[in-house]
């Protein structure tokens, strides 16, 4: 931090720590150094130095689990495929990445899906990825041909025509319709 920057208050510093896993790691390793680097106001330093790293991590984890709950609304099938691996994978991603508002749930889901594309591409549901891309790009119309593994017989695949139509001006949740035609 530049020496001339204005000192930050407790809430701002605590917020940074809750959003940034690497910063929490640094605080656990050397609290005085991190508090100094953050440029925290003198009167707020004792409270930050008093934080117990395990408690801070748990407080941050509560926020990450809330984020996962929001992301689940956008990619339920992908998370179902990840099963017990969903939380560890999301935690790995989210501890290092915090989305900016507005529509942060959509951005978070898209960024997490991007993370999975790079690390575990088979886990992503194509329909959900298409939907995320459609919302994110604020398209009015999109058509995709997607293949889906059949659930009735092993080794079967089904084709689906996925038609995405946005009817409202507002981007994000609630303003789009999703139609599927199964062939």
């Amino acid at each position, binding site marked *: 931090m530049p020496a001339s920057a204005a000192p930050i*208050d*407790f*809430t*701002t510093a*605590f*917020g*940074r720590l*809750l*959003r940034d896993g690497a910063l929490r790691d640094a605080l656990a390793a050397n609290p005085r150094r991190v508090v100094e680097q953050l440029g925290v106001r003198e009167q*707020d330093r*004792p*409270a930050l130095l*008093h*934080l*117990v790293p395990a*408690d*801070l991590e*748990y*407080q941050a984890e*509560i*926020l990450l689990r*809330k*984020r996962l709950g*929001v992301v689940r609304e956008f990619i339920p099938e992908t998370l179902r495929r990840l099963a017990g691996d969903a939380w560890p994978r999301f935690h790995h991603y989210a501890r290092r990445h*915090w989305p*900016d*508002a507005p529509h*942060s749930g959509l951005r978070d889901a898209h960024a997490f899906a991007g993370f999975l594309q790079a690390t575990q591409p088979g886990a992503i549901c194509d329909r959900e990825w298409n939907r995320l891309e459609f919302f994110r790009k604020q398209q009015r119309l999109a058509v995709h041909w997607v293949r889906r593994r059949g659930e009735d017989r092993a080794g079967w695949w089904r084709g689906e025509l996925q038609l995405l139509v946005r009817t409202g001006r*507002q981007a*994000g*949740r*609630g*303003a789009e319709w999703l139609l599927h035609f199964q062939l």
Partner: protein
Amino acid sequence: MMTGLGYRRELAAWIATQPRGVECLEITAEHFYPGAGAPPGQLARLAGQYHLFVHGLGLSLGTPGPLDRHQLDQFARVVQAANPDWISEHVAFTRTAEGDLGYLNPVPPTREMVRIVAEHAREVAERCGKPILLENITSHVRLPGELAETDFLNELCARADCGLLLDVTNLFINSRNHGFDPLAWVRELEPRRITQLHIVGYSRAGQRYTDGHAEPIQEELIELARAIVSRAPVQAIILERDEDFPEPRELEVEIAKLARISRPD
């Protein structure tokens, strides 16, 4: 004392039947913001059936600086439509000047924070034209400050001229995670400020107690609520279940348990 529950869309059909024992509802303001999916006219219908209270999650009273005008306007519109007996928010922050954190986080018990939260609470109450209550939250970190937590809450309620929404479950969870006596904590509070209670079963994750809002109310919580009601003029107790909703019959049993806290057999 009225008994009721937090309105959730999963419970809407059951609530519409006006089940026995449900005398009031607490609605979450953010669930009725534009785009949140609530049917038009629903608030007016609920207001016609029940005493309503409007509860906020995202006004972030503990953030230094001005309140988010857009959030406050949306909150006020919900209040206007619901015409509640009172409104409530948390002693917490959910955003900083740098971004949104998405959920409730604790504020340090300092005189500066008393001033910040109290001024924001007064502003919300004046904007909405309704009395406001402030609620204690669960926190996994214990923040030091100039004041004990109970002194902080007493000063805060005095300065904001408001009541306390005492979340029994949050108190119990904090007492277990941080090792203090919840009854002694309650005895340090100004009793006349305690206007409403929240209660729901706690959850456990290893050694930690958490507020998953997904469990039936445990007996020790009922006992704690009974002790609070015996010393404070509590006007309403709200069952605050958010997940893993049980069958209506089980909810009715829980509501009946809450009713017996103030009206023992």
